[in-house]
């Protein structure tokens, strides 16, 4: 088509942005960068040459030199480990590793996307230890003055807001037009909602909705912006800043634009296009969906799985198909909004229990089973317990062993939302079930999302074959929602296969085109017994060739172990520095308590203005209780130990400034120096 060739002004600014960026950055950093960059470059190219020389034969077929990626499909010339095309300077310490690689080390990732870290000491296995309490959250309270000042801050904010509204509505009627009934229309937004947004959230708006560009990997590019009218609107400055990203849900570091998964996705787009055009039941199903669903089922150790194109919608459209009137849902009080959405649509009754409190849960179970349905006292048709594997705001892990015990006694059905835990927990990355070493057959429904660990999008539900068949026909997604797109499916297939490892093609026919790979009974049984095992080669499309490090599962294993190390290291490190943190020490989500709303903005800003800028997520009411505002770190396998050191150092300094260290008494604290030196000791549970 003639039009398509013309590059329209609306096309994303791939090329223009480079020059713009270079100009703006060049000035500030030109003085120091060349030496760093040049020396690193030369070191690396030597290493490259050495590795090429030494690898004659070893990597014969798929030789992966230190620098250039093996992605033969990509034609782009910027395809080297070093040049992401945008940074040449390393003044912020983000572009290149502190120590150049040696000849033995072969890195196939871009350091800014996925950090180079070859020290085997910085690894750990995510696994439940009997010695470690599951509910390790002895939540520490801050001193009273902190609580008091927090309440007072909110009080001032609210009073000021009301005063400003009161005066504004009278003196500047035009600016407040949308808030008042005008020409017969009621205001579009309710008073409370808009008050909260205008008077509280807007003051910290700079912490939210920051536009970014590039891969949300180990680092990310911020699109710099500024506000001239107290955050009512923003103006882009035209510059970008590379920052250390400890905020994205990129647990295993699969958010990558280069590497084996990305190559597979490119091939996938060429083969399948961008969309399958329609809903799953009305002509939008492709063989890729079937393949991916079978692999997901194999991954989590269930008979079958169904995929939806959005994680939120997985809950909101499938829970109503599981339970209905006359059923009861028991839900943890901190369950995600998508679960609540689904629960409300289902028409079932709901009861909540205190977060992760097994005693309260048991008491509730005894009550609801004995009382039956309200008024009629008829027994409940079904009781579905919905919990999350890893809670995204708290970092707490569900007490699964206890839940399973209760399940055996009280016969309810169990639904675990593993949005954050799948891939991120367990020695094999199979989620919280794997972490506790529990057989997945004890859990009726395993739900999860691909947004997090797999660097993709969408969600799945896995369960028995009949259950999933019901969901295919009865869930809202089947007939009405768009099917997942091929690029996303391929990303899932590739990342999941590289976590599992692919077992070499066996005697079984490698026709990837079988409709339901787990169709026959015996084969599905064979699959079940080998859980958690590698993916049979027949289960991934035969055109998808992963580099050896991915397909033999070694890289996946490595990522899991790096994530486990990083998570524990940051968590324990912050504890030792004296901060109040929540959650399980093995959780890759590490919340650090700030309390005071004013500190949220300051913390965010101070982390961003450091020599190595760091972006953090701050969360406050209504996502958390009013007083316990927090920052939430999301650790990734793509971080190196040095990155975590940087974060710890930054927190240490900022924490002193903002008076945040109210955890352990000063005498028990460690210095940052000590923490970074003795990281191994911290990570291993004996410490």
């Amino acid at each position, binding site marked *: *088509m*003639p*039009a*398509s060739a*013309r590059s329209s002004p609306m*096309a994303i600014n791939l090329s223009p942005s480079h020059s713009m960026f270079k100009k703006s950055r060049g000035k500030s950093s030109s003085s120091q960068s060349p030496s760093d960059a040049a020396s690193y470059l030369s070191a690396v190219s030597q290493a490259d040459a050495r590795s090429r020389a030494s690898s004659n034969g070893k990597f014969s077929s798929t030789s992966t030199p230190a620098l250039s990626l093996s992605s033969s499909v990509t034609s782009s010339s910027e395809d080297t480990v070093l040049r992401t095309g945008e940074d040449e300077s390393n003044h912020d310490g983000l572009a290149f590793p502190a120590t150049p690689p040696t000849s033995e080390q072969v890195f196939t990732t871009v350091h800014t996307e996925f950090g180079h870290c070859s020290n085997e000491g910085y690894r750990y296995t995510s696994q439940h230890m009997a010695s470690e309490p599951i509910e390790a959250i002895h939540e520490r309270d801050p001193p009273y003055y902190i609580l008091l000042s927090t309440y007072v801050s909110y009080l001032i904010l609210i009073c000021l807001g009301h005063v400003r509204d009161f005066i504004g509505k009278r003196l500047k009627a035009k600016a407040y037009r*949308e808030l008042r009934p005008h020409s017969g229309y009621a*205001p579009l*937004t*309710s008073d409370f*909602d*808009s008050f909260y947004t205008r008077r509280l*959230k807007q003051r910290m708006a700079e912490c939210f*909705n920051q536009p*970014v560009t*590039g*891969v*949300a990997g180990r680092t990310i590019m911020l699109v710099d912006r500024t506000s001239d009218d107290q955050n009512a609107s923003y103006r882009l400055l035209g510059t970008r800043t590379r920052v250390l990203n400890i905020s*994205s849900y*990129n647990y295993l570091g699969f958010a*990558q*634009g*280069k590497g084996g998964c990305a190559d597979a996705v490119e091939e996938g*787009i060429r083969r399948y*296009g*961008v*969309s*399958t*055009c*329609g809903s799953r039941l*009305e*002509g939008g199903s492709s063989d890729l969906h*079937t393949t991916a669903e079978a692999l997901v089922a194999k991954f989590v150790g269930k008979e079958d799985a169904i995929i939806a194109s959005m*994680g*939120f*919608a997985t809950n909101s459209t499938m829970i109503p198909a599981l339970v209905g009137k006359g059923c009861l849902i028991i839900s943890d009080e901190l369950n995600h*909004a998508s679960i609540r*959405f689904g629960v409300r*649509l289902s028409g079932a009754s709901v*009861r909540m229990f205190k977060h992760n409190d097994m005693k309260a849960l048991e008491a509730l179970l005894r009550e609801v089973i*004995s009382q039956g349905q309200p008024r009629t006292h008829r*027994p*409940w048709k*079904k009781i579905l317990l919905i919990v999350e594997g890893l809670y995204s705001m708290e970092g707490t892990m569900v007490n699964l062993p206890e839940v399973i015990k209760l399940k055996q*006694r009280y*016969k309810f*059905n169990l639904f675990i939302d593993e949005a954050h835990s799948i891939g991120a927990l367990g020695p094999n990355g199979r989620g919280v079930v794997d972490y506790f070493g529990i057989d997945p057959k004890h859990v009726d429904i395993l739900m999860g999302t691909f947004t997090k660990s797999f660097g*993709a*999008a969408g969600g799945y539900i896995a369960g*028995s074959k*009949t259950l999933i068949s019901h969901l*295919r026909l*009865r869930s809202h997604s089947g007939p009405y*929602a*768009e099917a997942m797109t091929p*690029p*996303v499916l391929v*990303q899932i297939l590739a990342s999941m296969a590289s976590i599992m490892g692919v077992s070499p093609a066996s005697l079984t026919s490698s026709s990837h085109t079988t*409709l339901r790979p787990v169709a026959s009974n015996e084969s599905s049984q064979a699959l079940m017994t080998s859980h958690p095992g590698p993916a049979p080669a027949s289960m991934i499309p035969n055109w998808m060739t992963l580099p050896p490090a991915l397909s033999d599962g070694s890289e996946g294993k490595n990522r899991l172990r790096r994530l486990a190390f990083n998570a524990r290291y940051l968590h324990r490190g912050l504890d030792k520095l004296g901060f109040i943190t929540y959650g399980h020490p093995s959780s890759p989500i590490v919340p650090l308590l700030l309390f005071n709303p004013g500190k949220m903005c300051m913390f965010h800003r101070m982390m961003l203005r450091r020599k190595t800028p760091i972006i953090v*997520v701050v969360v406050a009411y209504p996502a958390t209780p009013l007083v316990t505002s927090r920052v939430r770190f999301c650790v990734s396998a793509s971080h190196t130990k040095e990155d975590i050191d940087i974060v710890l150092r930054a927190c240490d300094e900022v924490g002193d400034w903002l008076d945040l260290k109210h955890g352990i008494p000063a005498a028990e604290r460690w210095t940052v120096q000590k923490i970074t030196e003795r990281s191994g000791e911290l990570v291993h549970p004996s410490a």
Partner: protein
Amino acid sequence: MDSPSSENLFTFLSYSLANFQAAFFRIPGSAVLTRYVKSSHQDDPGRTLLEVILALFVIRTLLQSRTRTDRSGGKHFIQFSDKEIDDLVDEWTPEPLDPPLTEQQEADLAAIPVIAGPTGPKPKLMNTGKPCVNLASLNFAGLAGNEHIQQRAIETMRKYGVGSCGPSGFYGTIDVHTELEQRISDFLGTESSVLYAQGFSTICSVIPAFCKRSDIIIADRGVNFAIQKGLQISRSTIRWYDHNDLSSLESVLESVAKEMKRRRSQKHARKFIVTEGLFEQDGAMVDLPKLVELKEKYKFRLILDETLSFGSIGRTGRGLTELYNVPAARVDMIIGSLAIGLCSSGGFCAGSLTATSHQRHNALSFVFSASLPALLAVSALEGINLLVNTPSILNNLQENVRAARAILDRLDCVTIPSHSASPVIHIHLKTNSTSLHPSTAVVSTKPSNPSSVLPRDAANWTWDAETEEQILQEVVEDALAQGVLITKAKRLRGQELVDPRPSIRLALTSALSKKDTEKAVGVVRSSLIKVLGKRR
């Protein structure tokens, strides 16, 4: 009369009061408190009273919230002993979560078409391994498989990866999202727009973001499932008007306006009309100019779901606003899908800046879900560019629609409720005489009841969903045997507010030539005649 005991009581009280006082003064800081109370009482006795009332109020609310959670069963609560509870627990047997599938369900499952390889106008089918002509997938503008879009998607993936790894609020706002939002609002002519990660979940979240319990919504009886769910979540007062019948809408508007005048409490209620541009259930199209006139007259806000019409209707795919030449700014919110019109994924809501920024903070599936993958946003952007630059695409689509309708309209064993320009064509079976689907519009004189979702002549419907589904499935299979992929409109029977009549849904595409379309629709026609003829 009983003086000694009352005396006892009195001494006991004074004794305990003294004790309490002593204990109170032992608490550090109590002196400060008494001093404070005393001095403030001196300054202003009214304030003490006020503070006491406040304290009491706080205690009351605290107690209340506690009891509310404890009470649960209310007056129906039965006290059991532990033993009894154990017995009841032992006795309780839940229904299975996964009852075996019925035969019908098994058949439905097996009949789901699965495409091998890329989709497009002539894909290969998994089940048969043979190529077929595709009148099932929604590929109106023929963007599926477009090389340019694929190339841009690949480039974007190389720069941004696949997933965005975070919700918009937390570093999930990628520059291409902003760009696409800008592009959409420029394209439609609205002030702004906001992107969602899935088309279906868009309107489910938009409606409850604005419509609360005290608000009033007037909705069409034939709205799609996503809107139904949005209405359910909103808990607003809902009034219904007859499917695509604007005179019915006007009378409902009239009655609601009267009702609101009577009831003071509703004076500040927000008022919305929710309807679709091109109805998903039957392909009918709303008369937008009339609708906008009505909503302006009665001062309602209009939420228009253009999920099907965006990217398929109008000269360049802007939807109904383009077709009827109504400025989009006069429609308060337009919801569209990037998955259907632009063959990408995701959805959007376009409207005023107030409306969209409110959603960024309050729409659940926007706030609590990861943002759209960058490569899909860019694909959608390129889709819009193609539509704008090549108006012939939708022209071809319209020609195909006309060709198809020319073939189907002459068939007298079926009725077609769809609008003559609609690229989705629903085919209903014609049953004899009295049975009337509202879309076949035979006017009954009695006005319908706006509080009930049931259409006025629902009682007269004689069609039997199950047999019709069966017949239509036969048609689908017969057509497939002749190399044309079509589908029934898939429904969640029993979950819809009113079960729509079973239909076959053809989705036309500009990627097929007029001749191919005619041939394929001809096959459908002969399948219909064959299967229905057998039945007679």
